[in-house]
């Protein structure tokens, strides 16, 4: 068939037909189809990435020609108190948030997997924090954490749990971190719960019946059937969440701006403050590149994992 129509395509006037011929061949159609995406990603992802590397190695300052200064930015950052604090914050924030999201996510998924009334509505309600613009919902949280009118403090005081006036959530070091983590858990929990629920649904019921027949109680069934079979889903969810929690910007920016005294700054917010607000582009780029090793690890783990699954 291909040979026959190629002859037709050789008629001089029919350039259109020849083009159509070419597009019918995978060798040409494939590259043609990926070109638009490739152009976007080269110009607006690969190129900026190279530029980030260049900036981080230079003394670039907004509106001034720059020179390469080697690894000075990366080294100098370690003598910066704010950066050292940020480095520590990033791990505390990510570690605690992901742990909470995982434990609460598994619990919530197990509950949603039960016989429920209004199942669809329940799912809808649980997923809501994840779809609403984070910057806006975080504003709601910052009102709830307000130093004078905090609804938590009011409730706590009236229930008798807190002594008036209650903690100044966003103004004290550890409380501020707790607040930022709470909002992150609130916003990320739906992703964990719904994804783990999808994993739970795919576990064959026969396994549980067999387990029950062998005398395994609910705990044993969870430990020996549910958890091992959920492992792939859990691994993917944790990896995803790690990279996006580590690089979080919106919550900290809206809630605390990194304060009080840098105690909630993350790489993204500090890099914006130093790179844009005080104009030290080179330093700012170096800070955001500290996200890169985490990205590399997650990509490596995912690819290894996806490949293992494919075999």
């Amino acid at each position, binding site marked *: 068939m291909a040979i026959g129509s190629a002859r037709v395509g050789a008629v001089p006037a029919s350039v259109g037909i020849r083009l159509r011929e070419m597009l019918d061949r995978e060798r040409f159609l494939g590259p043609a189809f990926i070109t638009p*995406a490739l152009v976007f990603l080269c110009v607006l992802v690969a190129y900026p990435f190279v*530029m980030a590397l260049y900036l981080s190695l230079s003394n670039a300052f907004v509106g001034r020609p720059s020179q390469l200064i080697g690894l000075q930015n990366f080294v100098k950052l370690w003598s910066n108190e704010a950066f050292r604090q940020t480095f520590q914050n990033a791990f505390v924030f990510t570690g605690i948030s992901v742990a909470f999201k995982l434990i609460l996510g598994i619990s919530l998924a197990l509950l949603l997997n039960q016989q429920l009334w209004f199942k669809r509505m329940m799912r809808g309600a649980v997923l809501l924090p994840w779809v609403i613009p984070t910057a*806006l919902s975080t504003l*709601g949280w910052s009102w709830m954490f307000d130093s004078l009118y905090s609804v938590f403090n009011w409730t706590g005081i009236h229930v008798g749990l807190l002594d008036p006036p209650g903690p100044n959530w966003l103004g004290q070091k550890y409380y501020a971190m707790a607040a930022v983590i709470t909002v992150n858990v609130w916003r990320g929990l739906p992703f964990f719960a719904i994804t783990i629920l999808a994993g739970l649904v795919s576990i064959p019921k026969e396994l549980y019946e067999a387990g029950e027949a062998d005398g395994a109680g609910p705990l044993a069934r969870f430990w020996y059937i549910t958890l091992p079979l959920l492992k792939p889903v859990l691994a993917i969810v944790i990896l995803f969440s790690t990279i996006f929690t580590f690089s979080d910007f919106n919550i900290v920016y809206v809630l605390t701006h990194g304060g009080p005294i840098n105690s909630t700054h993350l790489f993204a917010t500090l890099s914006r403050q130093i790179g844009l607000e005080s104009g030290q582009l080179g330093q700012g780029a170096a800070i955001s590149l500290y996200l890169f090793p985490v*990205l590399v690890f997650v990509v490596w783990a995912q690819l290894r994992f996806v490949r293992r699954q494919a075999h």
Partner: protein
Amino acid sequence: MATVRRRPVARRLLMHLLLLPFLVFALFPFYHMTITSLKSDQELYDRYAVPLLIRQGATLEHYSKLLWDTAFLTWTKNSLVVTLLATTVSVAVGTVAAYALARLKFFGVSTFGTGIFVTYLVPTSLLFLPLAQVVNWLGLADSKWALIVTYPTFLIPFCTWLLMGYFRTVPKEVEECAMVDGATRIQALMRIVLPMAIPGVVCALLFAFTLSWNEFIYALTFTSSSDQITASVGVTSELVRGDIFYWGPLMAGAVLGSVPIVILYVFFLDYYVSGLTAGAVK
């Protein structure tokens, strides 16, 4: 009989009871936001008033202040323009790329697939500084066009990855049949494969819309004039004067800025659920 029947009901009740704290945790912020936006300033800033209820009458004054005394309508219009254009471009580009990755064999296909996956995982906060320079060079500084151009950088990898999964579920044989009957590959794609992958395309559209409506760091960095910024940026930056927060209009803005997403969400809940899991699991 009765005891056998009662046990599942008791168990069911217990499950709902256990679920309650999760529901309160998820929904309370929205409830509190909404009632705050409807309170009069007098009640809002009364330290002895009950913050959980509206006691002194609901009012729409914060909403009218937001709509007529600020540029909120312009910000919302900007958000809509940016979101609609970025979504359309990204889903179109993502669809053809996903088809190529799922179905065609050509030089470099697996490298490109890996590349898409890697960019899918690149957080926006990693590249916003150099991207701001690129935006300057393109002459788009402080323009909503900067956002229309840059949003596809995270939308295209997402759409491609999502749609690739859907295209793989369409059996190859259907397409081959059409081509044996004389359809070209593009005809087969347009008339056979795409209609069968419609749920995937709807999903991609919804998620692309949501992701770009919710985007914050690029919008905050690339635009600053009041006639170019999006709703999220407008509400979080223009309603705060120095250290003074206008909580009434702020909460009204947070509520109204979420409305388009909530409407989509109510109608397409099942797509959200399936897309969320497809993005991560597939």
